[in-house]
């Protein structure tokens, strides 16, 4: 029988990042602890606590300005220790922040300290974020609104107001932006160069800008719009304002648009605006219909079907070359064939499925979009036309692509790009399934991400391979690394760590997905490879 303890601290605020770190460390370091949560008692967080059976005692009536710390443990002592650990962690954390010179209490105080500030990054809880963004816009500041759960009505007003004032309002729910070469939010350290992006896709920006840097070119600006921007309700206000801004920027020679396909009316609106900019535009509406692709072409723009293709087409245009029709592999076809042949030979008879465990949502969508043509039935918890919906994302079936950054995984927890715990567990779960042939992974580098995302997964990758081998199976791991050598984690170091652990590292996520499709096609792989090139 487990013991549950709860402590509520009235009117005490901590940001979600420090709270989740505190809870995560307590769970890891204190013996006998089953679960620890440290949360502000917002409705969403209370729902999470209720779901895991921890909405107990005083927590039930706590309000959004109250801090709740709950611990479940095998005995009372461990539960108490966990709560004490979290309390101490938070006090220490705040002391550390206060020691920093540039810390103030309000936006107004910040402007007194830095009167010439020009951009604000907001990551408060959603119900407050719109208010802070509005204050910033009133003061003439550009805004990156990282927070999600901002009301739709607020988003629309904020965006119209920003457009009227000539300010950028990126988000809500915008994880990434590159402003004058500076990465905001989750961003890679990329070269400066002639390609500008407007994107409603966080890891989409990261993948495209990283490929461009690794190929020796660079990015001027990457304007994140937030996922709700290209919808009928919002009308793609930020996307369109972003396009106009890039059109006026002398250093931006080619523009790339990245988004899931918006509703037809909005997609056409964006394409129409893009066709009037007087600059080449590459449009990647991931999973777009043939009709939409034709429409993009008819307007003199360049459609791209994947993130990788968007990057390579934009680079070709910059170099004055004809954009490639499509990218299959950047390695030679024969070299790919050798890799596949070697792996397929080692697979046991029952091994046939691909399981993609993703930290990046757009990367998961790209993988599902590619795999759906070769592997059936394919399930995913990202919406891609032609892919079955994975009802329970905690349990893979058949071929599955799982976005582990989806809401159901991150409620009350850190994002898998920061905390690999759930992905580590899931790797072992998939390895135990005798029908699994390939585990497909993304490793996302950059500011904001885990300090060693490849290294963190390697013990489980090794264990998974050993587990399979003991049962007479050969488990194939395929990964791609989204990042650059300038990132704090270093692209080459991360890649080589994975390779040493027996992971096949492909140059892009799209190519990693294609290789996975080939290996899982087993004795039919040659036909599939030819189909890819046809």
């Amino acid at each position: 029988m487990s013991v549950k303890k709860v402590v509520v601290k009235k009117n005490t605020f901590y940001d979600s990042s420090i709270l989740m770190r505190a809870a995560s460390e307590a769970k890891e370091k204190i013996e006998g602890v089953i679960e620890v949560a440290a949360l502000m008692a917002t409705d969403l967080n209370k729902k999470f606590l209720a779901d895991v059976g921890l909405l107990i005692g005083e927590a039930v009536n706590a309000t959004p300005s109250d801090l709740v710390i709950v611990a479940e443990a095998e005995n009372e002592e461990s539960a108490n220790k966990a709560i004490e650990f979290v309390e101490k962690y938070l006090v220490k954390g705040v002391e550390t922040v206060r020691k920093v010179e540039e810390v103030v209490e309000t936006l107004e105080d910040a402007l007194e300290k830095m009167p010439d500030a020009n951009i604000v990054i907001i990551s408060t809880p959603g119900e407050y974020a719109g208010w802070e963004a509005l204050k910033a816009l009133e003061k003439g500041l550009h805004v990156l609104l990282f927070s999600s759960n901002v009301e739709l009505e607020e988003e629309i007003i904020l965006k119209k107001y920003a457009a009227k004032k000539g300010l950028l309002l990126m988000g809500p729910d915008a994880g990434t932006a590159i402003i004058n070469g500076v990465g905001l939010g989750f961003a890679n350290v990329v070269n400066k160069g002639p390609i500008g992006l407007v994107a409603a896709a966080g890891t989409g920006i990261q993948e495209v800008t990283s490929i461009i840097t690794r190929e020796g070119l660079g990015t001027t600006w990457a304007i994140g719009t937030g996922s709700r921007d290209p919808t009928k309700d919002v009308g793609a206000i930020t996307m369109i304002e972003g396009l106009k801004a890039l059109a006026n920027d002398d250093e931006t020679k080619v523009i790339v648009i990245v988004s899931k396909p918006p509703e037809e009316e909005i997609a056409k609106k964006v394409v129409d605006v893009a066709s009037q900019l007087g600059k080449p535009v590459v449009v990647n509406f991931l999973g777009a219909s043939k009709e939409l692709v034709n429409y993009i072409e008819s307007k003199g723009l360049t459609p791209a079907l994947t993130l990788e293709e968007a990057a390579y087409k934009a680079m070709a245009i910059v170099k004055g070359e004809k954009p490639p029709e499509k990218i299959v592999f950047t390695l030679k076809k024969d070299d790919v064939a050798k890799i596949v042949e070697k792996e397929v030979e080692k697979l046991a008879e029952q091994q046939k499925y691909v399981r993609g465990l993703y930290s990046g949502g757009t990367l998961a969508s790209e993988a599902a979009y590619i795999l759906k043509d070769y592997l059936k039935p394919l399930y995913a918890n990202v919406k891609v036309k032609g892919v079955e919906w994975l009802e329970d994302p905690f349990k893979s079936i058949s071929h599955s692509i799982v976005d582990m950054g989806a809401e159901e995984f991150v409620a009350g927890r850190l994002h898998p790009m920061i905390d690999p715990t759930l992905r580590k567990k899931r790797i072992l779960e998939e390895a135990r399934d005798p029908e699994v042939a390939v585990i497909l992974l993304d490793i996302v580098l950059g500011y904001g991400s885990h300090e060693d995302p490849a290294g963190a997964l390697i013990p489980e990758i090794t264990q998974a391979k050993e587990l399979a081998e003991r049962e007479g199976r050969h488990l194939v791991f395929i990964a791609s690394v989204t990042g650059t050598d300038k990132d704090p984690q270093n692209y080459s170091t991360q890649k080589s760590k994975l390779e040493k652990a027996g992971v096949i590292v492909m140059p892009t996520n799209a190519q990693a997905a294609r290789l996975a499709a080939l290996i899982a096609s087993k004795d039919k792989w040659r036909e599939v490879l030819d189909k890819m090139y046809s």
Partner: protein
Amino acid sequence: MVVDLKKIKEQGVKAINIGIKDFYDSLKAQNVPVVHVMWKPPAGGKIEIFKRLKKLKFKKIEKSL
């Protein structure tokens, strides 16, 4: 009015970070001038009062558009 990126380029990024401190740290690591706001809920944490204030303010801005 079209966003003037040239102006940001001339000024360089000068940032205020409100909320999660990690974003302050990553700007510091990129040598970007940044001030961190150790944010707390406004209106003394009274969410209902805050929501009313917020609604009024957004209505006012909406009317001005």
